[in-house]
C-alpha cells in the first residue's frame, strides 16, 4: 500500500555508506527494511491549512513524521520522496473522538466462577478502569484500515466491554507498532450492563458509578493522609480500580461517555453534574431540538457521524391512499427525518461546538453523511472544524494535530476533490510516518470473505440464565442472507430475518418481536469468524446481552 512509485532524486551518500556497512546475513526480512527516505514532498497540491482559511496551491514537505515546510512554493529537499498528488486537495487528517477499532476484543473469562450474580468480580462486572487500550492495541485490525479509508488519521481508541472498560489511547491510525500520540489520559464509560451479573441495568450502572467515585475519592484522601504520617493508622487498601479512578476524581482525566440516545445524553449529563466530572459525550444522536439545554449545560459533544438512512423509510403507496392513520404517521415520520437530517446544522446554529465519533457510525459512507449534513444546513467550515480542530481541542492534542502547520505531526488526508463541497474520493492518507494510498473505491475489509451460511448454535447470556437456539442461515442472493432464528424452548415459533447483508465480518440485523399486542425490537450485532461468532443482543430497552455461537454445519 505504500507508494513505491516514488522518484529518487539522487542517492544520498549516507545511505550508501550505510548499505556498505550492513553485515552480511543469510536471510533478510525485506519487510523490515526501512523506507529509503523518511522525507516526503508534495508538489502543487491544494492546501487547506485549517477550517476557514482560504485554500491555495502550494507545496508541503514532511520529514520524520513532522511537517517540515508548508508554503506556496518551495523546493523539494534532495532526499525527498516525491508524491504524485498534483492539484489534489490536502487537509489535516481527520480526528475521531472515539472508536473501538485497533483494540483486541477482551474475551470473557470463562474460568471466573461467580457464585453470587449480585457480587461479581470487577472484571465480570465490566469495571476495569485500570486496563489500558494501549495494552490491547492491535495494529492489524480491519477497523484501523476502515478509519484510514474514511480519512481519519488520529483516533481515540477504547475497549468496549462493560460500563467502564478502561483508559483510552490516542493513536495515529497507521497500524504501526508505536502509534501512541497520548496515553493513560481518558476513561471510556457507557450505560452498558453486565448481563446476568450486577450491574445489569442502567439504574445499577449509575448507582455503581456513584459508589466507585466516592470510594475512590475517600481512599485517595486517606492514602494521602497515611503517607504523611502512618503512625496509628490502619493500612490503606485501595483496589486497582479505585486507584485507576483517582485522576477522574481529580478531574485530570476526562470521561468519554457513550450517549447513543437522547435520553442517555440527559442521563450522562446528570451523572456528570452529580459527581462533578469532566465529560465528553460520544456517539451522540439527534439532539437538534434540545440545543438550549446543551448550551446551558455546556455539554461537550461528539456526534455519531451517521445521518438517517432515507432508504429505510419504505412508503406503501396503496396504503397511503386509503389509510388515514398510516398517512398521518408517515407525515410525522418525514418531519422527524427532516429534523434529524438538520441535527448538525442546528448545533452550529446554536453555537454549540461538536466533533464526531466513529464508534457506531457507518464509516464506509462517511462522506455521504458529511455532505448530507452540509446539504441540510451545516456550513462546510463547521464540518471541517468538527473533523479537525474541535476534536483536537477536545482530546487535548491541538498542539500536535488538527491543522496543517509547520512542526505539527504530518497527519494528512488527500482527496481528489474538495471534500466539504462535492463527492470526493480519498486518495491518500499520511499518518504515523507512513503514506497510504487508497486503491479505489473503498478499502475492502480483510474479513469480507467470511461466509456465514450454515447452521449455527447461539446462546444469549441474560439475567435469567442462558437462552439457546439455532441460527439457520442461507445465502439467498450474492452477499445477502436469510436468517431463521429457532429458539430451543419454542422451536415451533421461529423468527425469520430476510436480506441480512454482512459488512466484512460484521453481521448486524434487527427484528421486532411481537406477540399478543406486545412488541420488543431486537437488535443483534455480531462479528463472525470462520467457526464462531460473538456480539451483543439489544433487547428493547431491557438491556444488551452478550450473544455467541458456533458453526454446527455448513450447507450441503
Amino acid at each position, binding site marked *: 500500500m505504500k507508494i513505491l512509485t516514488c522518484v529518487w532524486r539522487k542517492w544520498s551518500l549516507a545511505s550508501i555508506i550505510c548499505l556498505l556497512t550492513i553485515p552480511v546475513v543469510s536471510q533478510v526480512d525485506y519487510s523490515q527494511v526501512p523506507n529509503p527516505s523518511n522525507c516526503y514532498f508534495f508538489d502543487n497540491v491544494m492546501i487547506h491549512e485549517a477550517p476557514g482559511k482560504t485554500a491555495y496551491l502550494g507545496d508541503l514537505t514532511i520529514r520524520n513524521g513532522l511537517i517540515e515546510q508548508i508554503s506556496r512554493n518551495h523546493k523539494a529537499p534532495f532526499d525527498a520522496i516525491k508524491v504524485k498528488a498534483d492539484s489534489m486537495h490536502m487537509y489535516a487528517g481527520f480526528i475521531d473522538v472515539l472508536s473501538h477499532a485497533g483494540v483486541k476484543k477482551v474475551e470473557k473469562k470463562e474460568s471466573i466462577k461467580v457464585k453470587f450474580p449480585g457480587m461479581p468480580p470487577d472484571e465480570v462486572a465490566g469495571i476495569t478502569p485500570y486496563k489500558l487500550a494501549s495494552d490491547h492495541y492491535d495494529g492489524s485490525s480491519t477497523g484501523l484500515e476502515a478509519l484510514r479509508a474514511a480519512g481519519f488519521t488520529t483516533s481515540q481508541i477504547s475497549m468496549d466491554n462493560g460500563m467502564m472498560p478502561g483508559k483510552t489511547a490516542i493513536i495515529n491510525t497507521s497500524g504501526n507498532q508505536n502509534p501512541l500520540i497520548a496515553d493513560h489520559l481518558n476513561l471510556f464509560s457507557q450505560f452498558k450492563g453486565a448481563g446476568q451479573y450486577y450491574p445489569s441495568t442502567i*439504574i445499577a450502572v449509575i448507582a455503581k458509578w456513584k459508589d466507585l467515585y466516592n470510594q475512590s475519592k475517600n481512599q485517595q484522601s486517606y492514602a494521602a493522609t497515611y503517607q504523611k504520617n502512618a503512625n496509628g493508622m490502619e493500612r490503606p487498601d485501595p483496589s486497582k480500580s479505585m486507584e485507576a479512578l483517582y485522576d477522574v476524581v481529580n478531574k485530570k482525566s476526562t470521561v468519554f461517555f457513550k450517549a447513543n440516545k437522547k435520553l442517555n445524553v440527559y442521563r450522562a449529563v446528570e451523572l456528570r453534574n452529580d459527581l462533578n466530572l469532566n465529560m465528553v459525550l460520544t456517539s451522540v444522536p439527534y439532539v437538534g431540538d434540545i440545543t438550549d439545554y446543551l448550551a446551558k449545560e455546556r455539554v461537550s459533544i461528539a456526534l455519531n457521524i451517521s445521518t438517517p438512512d432515507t432508504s429505510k423509510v419504505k412508503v406503501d403507496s396503496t396504503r397511503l391512499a386509503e389509510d388515514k392513520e398510516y398517512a398521518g404517521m408517515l407525515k410525522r415520520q418525514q418531519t422527524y427525518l427532516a*429534523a434529524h437530517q438538520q441535527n448538525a446544522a442546528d448545533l452550529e446554529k446554536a453555537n454549540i461546538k461538536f466533533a464526531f465519533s466513529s464508534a457506531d457510525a457507518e464509516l464506509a459512507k462517511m462522506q455521504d453523511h458529511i455532505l448530507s449534513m452540509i446539504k441540510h444546513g451545516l456550513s462546510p467550515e463547521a464540518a471541517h472544524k468538527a473533523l479537525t480542530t474541535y476534536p483536537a481541542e477536545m482530546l487535548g492534542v491541538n498542539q500536535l494535530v488538527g491543522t496543517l502547520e509547520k512542526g505539527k505531526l504530518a497527519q494528512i488526508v488527500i482527496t481528489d476533490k474538495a471534500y466539504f463541497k462535492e463527492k470526493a474520493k480519498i486518495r491518500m492518507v499520511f499518518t504515523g510516518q507512513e503514506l497510504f494510498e487508497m486503491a479505489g473505491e473503498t478499502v475492502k475489509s480483510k474479513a469480507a470473505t467470511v461466509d456465514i451460511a450454515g447452521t449455527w448454535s447461539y446462546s444469549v447470556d441474560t439475567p*435469567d440464565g442462558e437462552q439457546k437456539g439455532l441460527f439457520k442461515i442461507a445465502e439467498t442472493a450474492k452477499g445477502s442472507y436469510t436468517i431463521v432464528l429457532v429458539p430451543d424452548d419454542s422451536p415451533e415459533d421461529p423468527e425469520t430475518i430476510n436480506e441480512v447483508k454482512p459488512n466484512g465480518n460484521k453481521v448486524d440485523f434487527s427484528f421486532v418481536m411481537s406477540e399478543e399486542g406486545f412488541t420488543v425490537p431486537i437488535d443483534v450485532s455480531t462479528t463472525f469468524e470462520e467457526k464462531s461468532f460473538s456480539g451483543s*443482543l439489544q433487547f428493547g430497552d431491557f438491556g444488551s446481552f452478550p450473544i455467541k455461537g458456533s458453526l454446527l454445519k455448513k450447507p450441503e
Partner: protein
Amino acid sequence: MKYLIISIFMSVWFNAAIAQKDILIKNGTLLTITDGVKEQTDILLSNGKIKSIGKDLAAPNAKIIDAEGMFVMPGIIDAHSHIAIDAVNEATNPVTAEVFVGDAIDPYDIAIYRALAGGVTISHAMHGSANAIGGQCETLKHRWGESNPKAFVMEDAPRTIKFALGENPMRVHGEGKDIAPRTRMGIEQEFRRSFEGAKRYKQAWASYHSGKTKKPPTYSLRMQTLADILDGKIIIHCHSYRADEILMLMNVLSDFGVNKIVFQHVNEGFKIAPELAEFGAHASVFSDWWAYKFEVYYSTAYNAAILSKNGVITSINSDDAGLIRHLYHEAAKTQRYGRLSDNEALKLITINPAIQLGIDDRVGSLETNKEADIAIFKNHPLSVYAIPQMTIVDGVIRFDINEDMDDMRMEINPEMMLPAFYEQNEGHEDKCMQGVHTDHHHNHHHSHSHHQH
C-alpha cells in the same frame, strides 16, 4: 410543505401546553375530596397553584374553561406504576437499595399521555418486585410534552423504596440463581441482615466522623440508603400478598424502629386490617385483580372497603399501563363491593395515595394553595358513563379531549415505520417483573397476562 405544517402544528400544540397562563374553570361541580361537593363553583388556577375556589370568580386575563355540567376533581394519583421508566428490575441481587428508577425516566413513553387521558396527573414509578429490597422509586408528575426526564420529577416529593415479599424474590433468587432467599423465612432474613448492616454502617461512619477511627469505612450507596430508611427518610412501599408475611414485616420494622410503610397489592390485607391500622401501615390495592399465581388466590373485591372501614389509609393502584387509564372505574367498584360513599371511593385515588407518597399537603384535593392538578370529567367520575375531558398538571393543560390528535408521540424513529402503539411500547411492559423473565427473548411468553405482579 405539508410536513412543515404538521411540524409547526405539533410545536405550537406543545408550546401552547407549556405556556403558563391563568386558567379559570367556570361553573363546574367540584369534587373537592376534603371539603365536600360544590355545585356551580369556579376554580382559578394561577402560577401552577389553585388560587381560589368560589362562586362567580373573575380573572380578566385567564383562559376560561366552561365546566357547566362537568365534574372537576383533583388529578388522580396512582401509587403503584411502572410507566415512564426504562429500567424496572435490577434482578441480579436480592438487595439493591442503591438503584433508583428516577435515573431512568422515559418522558417519551406514550403511557404517560394515556394516563393523562384517564385523569391521572401523578404516578409513583416503582422498582419491580424481583428483590426483597428493590430500588428507590420516583414520584412523577405527568408533564407530557417536556423532553428532559427531570421535568417529570415531582420536586421535593419524599423518597420511597420498593420492598417485596413472597414468590417473586423467592423465584428469582432462590429458584433462579440458587441463592438466598429461597423461602419466605429467607426473605425475612434479607431484611434483618440488611438493616443490621445499615446500623453498623452508620456506626462506623459516626465513629470515623468523631475521630475515634481514622480510616473511613468503604462508601456504599446501598448501605447509606438502608441507613436512610432506618432514619425515617424513606417511605417503604412493599409488594405483598399474604397476611402472615405482612405481619412478619411489621415485626421486623418494629424491631428496627421503622414505621413508614405502605403495603402494595396486600390482597390478604382484609384479614389483618386492624393490625395494619394499629401499626399505622397503609395499603394500596387492586380493586379486583387476583389468582395470577398461587399466593394471590385468597382475595376479595371487598378488600379496599374492609381496609378503609378499619381505618387503614387505602388507595387503589394500577401497576399497569392499561389499568392506569381508568382508575376512576376501579375506585367505583368499591361502591358495588363494599358500599363506599362517593367521597370514600374517590379518596382511594386522590388524597389517600397522596398521603401514601407523602405529598398530601400539596395535591390530592381541591384546596387553595394546593398544586393545580385537575381532572375534568363529563358525567360523574364514578359513573360508568364518565369520560375524562381535560387534565391539568401544575396549571398546564396536558390533555384536552378536543385537542387529542391521533398521533401524540413525542419521539419518532425516522428510519423505522411502526404503529404508534408498538413504537412507544418498545421495552415497556410497565410491569412489576419487567426485565426479569427474559425467557420471552425467544418464546414470547410475555408477562402481560398479569401473572407477574
